[in-house]
């Protein structure tokens, strides 16, 4: 279970109406999907960037805890980690660089390297140095065929539609088999068919035990995927 405990961040500069201070506390079980909503500027992207390690928090903990500790939370979100549990709590993920956190982010756009064909974009998720085994090559082809992109492995991202690009990005996250999937409005601006196909991909990952954190404006996405919902108010996560 992923636990964030007063994960804090402070912006030195912000526009009027934006929140400068954040402290995030929540937990997320494997196979679960948690949706976070809030007006723009509320800090949704800040939350995802903190989790992924693109921003460094000023204080707080982010860690994996075992089932036993997780059960004590029950359904109540927004509670701090119990004190005195340090020996049961795994390492603080805050100390880890982005690549060691076991997380994959899918953004609204720019998820792919524009100058590299589809198969390399997927392959880099399997092997960062792109030394792919035959089995891995096969899994790329199979995966592409499964998401309806069979035969398009040589295309450049610019030659695909927006929905197809997002499918490639989600396929890569699927093949990476990380523990957490962070979705930063990945379905925006796509038509219904594309979104349903992408939801299916997310559900597959959930079924495989991946914890999903979804940031989306669209209630349809939230209804389709999320089991739990939280809202961002004044830099804090509260039950919606």
């Amino acid at each position, binding site marked *: 279970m992923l636990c964030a405990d007063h994960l804090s961040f402070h912006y030195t500069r912000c526009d009027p109406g934006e929140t400068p201070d954040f402290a995030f506390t929540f937990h997320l079980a494997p196979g679960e999907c948690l949706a976070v909503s809030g007006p723009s*500027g509320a800090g949704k992207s800040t939350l995802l960037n903190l989790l992924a390690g693109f921003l460094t928090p000023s204080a707080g903990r982010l860690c994996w805890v075992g089932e036993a500790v997780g059960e004590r939370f029950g359904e109540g979100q927004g509670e701090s980690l119990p004190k005195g549990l340090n020996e049961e709590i795994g390492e603080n993920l805050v100390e880890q660089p982005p690549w060691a956190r076991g997380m994959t*982010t899918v953004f609204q756009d*720019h998820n792919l*390297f524009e*100058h590299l064909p589809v198969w390399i974009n997927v392959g880099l998720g399997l092997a*960062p*140095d792109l030394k792919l085994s035959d089995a891995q090559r*096969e899994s790329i082809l199979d995966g592409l065929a499964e998401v309806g992109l069979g035969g398009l*492995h*040589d295309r450049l991202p610019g030659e695909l539609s927006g929905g197809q690009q997002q499918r490639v990005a989600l396929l890569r996250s699927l093949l990476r088999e990380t523990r957490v999937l962070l979705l930063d409005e990945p379905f925006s601006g796509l038509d219904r068919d594309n979104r349903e196909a992408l939801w299916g991909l997310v559900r597959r990952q959930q079924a495989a035990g991946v914890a999903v954190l979804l940031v989306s404006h669209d209630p349809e996405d939230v209804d389709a995927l999320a089991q739990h919902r939280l809202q961002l108010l004044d830099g804090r996560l509260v039950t919606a």
Partner: protein
Amino acid sequence: MASEALTAGKASPHGQRRLTQLPLWAGLTALAALVGLGLGSLGALLVQAPGVSPSSLWREPYLAGVLRFSLWQASLSTLVSLALAVPVAVALARRPRFVGRRLLLRAMELSLVVPSLIALFGLVAVHGRQGWAAPLWEALTGAPAGYLYGLSGIVLAHVFYNLPLAARLLLQELERAPAAHWRLAAQLGLQRQAIWRTLEWPALKRLLPRLAALIFTLCFTSFAIVMTLGGGPGSTTLEVALYQALKFDNDLALAALLALVQLTICLGLWALALSQGGAPSLVAGDDAMPLQGRWQRRDALGVSRFTDGCWLVALSLLLLPPLAAVVLAGLGGVTDLAAQSSLWPALGRSLVMAAGAGSLALMLGLALLAGRGWLAARGQRLTAGLMEGSGQLILVLPALVLGTGLFLLLRPRLGGGWQGYGLVVLVNGFMALPFVMQVLRGALLGLPVAQRRLADQLDIQGLARFRWLLWPRLRRPAALALAYAMTLSLGDFSVIALFGSPSAPTLPMLLYQQLGSYRWQTAAATALVLLATVAALFMCFAWLTRRLPRYPFACPPRPDFPQPPANDRPEP
């Protein structure tokens, strides 16, 4: 907000943790080599000079005259070039489509690197006493055409070089304006004045100070043009006086003094220009702007059709006849080529030296920029700026001074022969460095934020990061930079004049010898060979990197797998 924090570089301490310090060390090595050799050579000159007396600058009328003339011709050349380049650039921006536009732009880009002796050859063929334009001039003024010699000739040659360059760079700046602005201008129906004030002038204003500094520096230190067209002590510049002091009088004190004066003036000028802010690119990009945003302009109608036409014809008349003259005269002398026994060894010598100088400049430029990026990522902005700025040193330090200083430094062990040529390669590499760095800058100044985050999350580091993320973006600019550097070295006729031996000439030296002995036909053929080599270099490098590499997918061996439908390969 979030992106701001990310680009600040401090927010992501892990971002580069596992990258080695290789970029830093490469950058520092290049920096040490550059600054060490640059300042070392100047120092060597100063030490060897038995007493430099700055007061002789104003006490000796000869020196005062040289200084005055240098400043005067450079100012005049800069002023004329820029004043004419602005309307030309505006006209070119307003006419996005006409026959021969691409060709004209290509010729303008190349004007910077056309070897000066070739340009001179063409200018003499067109504007000389027996040139193509001479009858016209005589009919108009009644006097024989002697305007190519003296001040007017020097300014004409400098304008021939710098006007196309300036206009090309200004045009690039104009075309960089966001398409949305031009869309808006079209919808609002902005008129000439309004477009100039809202769009054109703000864009040009950014570039003008640096452009002026660049052109002034190039004219101020110009060597071959002044030496050929100057004719006499009345019109001599510091650079030519420096050459004479070194080559004929062996007067190191005077050379050191002249070098210092030149250095001071150029440094002061660049400081002034750089303090005007902004760092626009000073090298034209290799590919044309995407043609997606061509909106109709209200001011492109009516009388401007005529005035734009006039400007473009005038530009073509300045630029193209000398180049055409080289080609035509060269074709006439082609039959001589076989008989010229010294031509091919000279060409080989030139190419080898150009390859050496080009690779040197490319490696130094890459190292400096990598070091700069490494430092900038850690918030060391000042050091980073210093590292990048050191590549521009040669723009203010005369190449002759660098060469001579190095010669003095290495003299005990440096014999003649190939060692002199090695020195020339070194100096040529340094000379090309500012241009190489301008071309490489954009590609090497780091990945966009989105790509960097992605690469971090996927753990693409070190060699793989270079291989898959940097190299694809770098190869085109690197090829272009190499072509620029090799061309500059191919056409160099300043350092080689000092160190080359007449019995083993490079191509420009051979050309100069042939011109000097009035072997017009042979010289024309040599000039054509030089020009063709330059053009072939550019075409070759552009062809090698003409499109993104395709990364073919190696299908895993399995019998049941149907071959993917090939999109770009026809079925046999």
